[in-house]
């Protein structure tokens, strides 16, 4: 059960710079650790994080990537990422995390620009 906590200001003024925060639940198992029984714990990482901005009225498949990141083993469990974004028009922010063992988690947050 993956959960994410996303913090986006509810409304923003045009041209304003916003801070977006995204925290996701994931063990980020490195593949180097051993269990108390001595067995190697299999690697289980989030490999890629991306956030797309979809302008209001357009379909999900369009949209612009505003940030994308490749994650590696040295990143702590439950990765927290924050980034800044300039508000231009209203729309939806679509977050996507993908990783090992078919891990995939998506979240959508509306952004209202006045």
């Amino acid at each position, binding site marked *: 059960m993956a959960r994410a906590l996303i913090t986006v200001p509810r409304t923003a003024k045009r041209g304003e710079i916003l801070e977006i*925060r995204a*925290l996701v*639940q994931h063990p980020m198992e490195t593949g180097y650790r051993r269990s108390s029984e001595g067995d190697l714990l299999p690697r289980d990482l989030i490999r890629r994080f991306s956030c797309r901005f979809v302008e209001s009225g357009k379909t999900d498949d369009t949209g612009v990537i505003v940030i994308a990141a490749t994650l590696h083993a040295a990143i702590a469990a439950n990765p927290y990422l924050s980034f800044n974004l300039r508000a231009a028009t209203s729309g939806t922010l679509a977050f996507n995390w993908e990783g090992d063992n078919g891990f995939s988690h998506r979240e959508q947050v509306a952004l209202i620009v006045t």
Partner: protein
Amino acid sequence: MRKIGVATRVIALAMLGFVSLAVAQSTRQSGFDFMQPATQALQKDDTQNPAMLWVKDGQAIWAQRDGATQKSCADCHGDIKRTRGVAARYPQYSAEAKGVINLSQQINQCRTTHQQAKAWPAEDASLLGVETAIAVESRGQPLAPPAQSQLVDAQKRGEAAFDRRIGQVDLSCRDCHESLAGKRLGGNIIPQGHPTGYPIYRLEWQAVGSLQRRLRNCMTAVRSEPYPYGASELVDLEAYLANRAAGMQLESPGVRP
């Protein structure tokens, strides 16, 4: 300046001798006060505190119907916000369990009796989620163990355990968490051991864990055999710690190094 400092210290020492209890009460500090500013910031900001992921899990489970009776926590207890203050009153005596139990045991008791569902194993993510979601509602409330004779007995047994030297290292809880509190153990500052932030997100665990997990960690660290999860000895110790920290504010979910 220096003379004043010495004089203050003499007075402090004199006070320590005569009214040691009062001094101990006024100098109680949460583990939070011993942490680095960066770790404190992680706990203070709910948008960064990773334990909030467990809270979100727990809030979802609160509304989920489960077990043979197909009841949810909300069906009996209503909105989770109504549990304000509850987490600050555990461990407490339960007539149903015929003994002193902690909050996670109470949750499991509700599961087995009212939901007729299987009890969650110790440190199960769902159990920790519900416990954390209940605890966060009591944030800022003072720890308030109820006045129950059975609880007083448990606190006494817990205090005896707190003073008992254990393990190959031959240390009692008091040796470190009172006599040496504020000093360093390796790179870490030894806290006073107040259970004000539980369940906590411990950076070392990279996950949320219970007070019993933390107590078992300490027992292993002094090279003694830890009591199993749910053992009455651990609950007694929890009861004593809650009483020792009575009046201190609950700050769940805490972040600890």
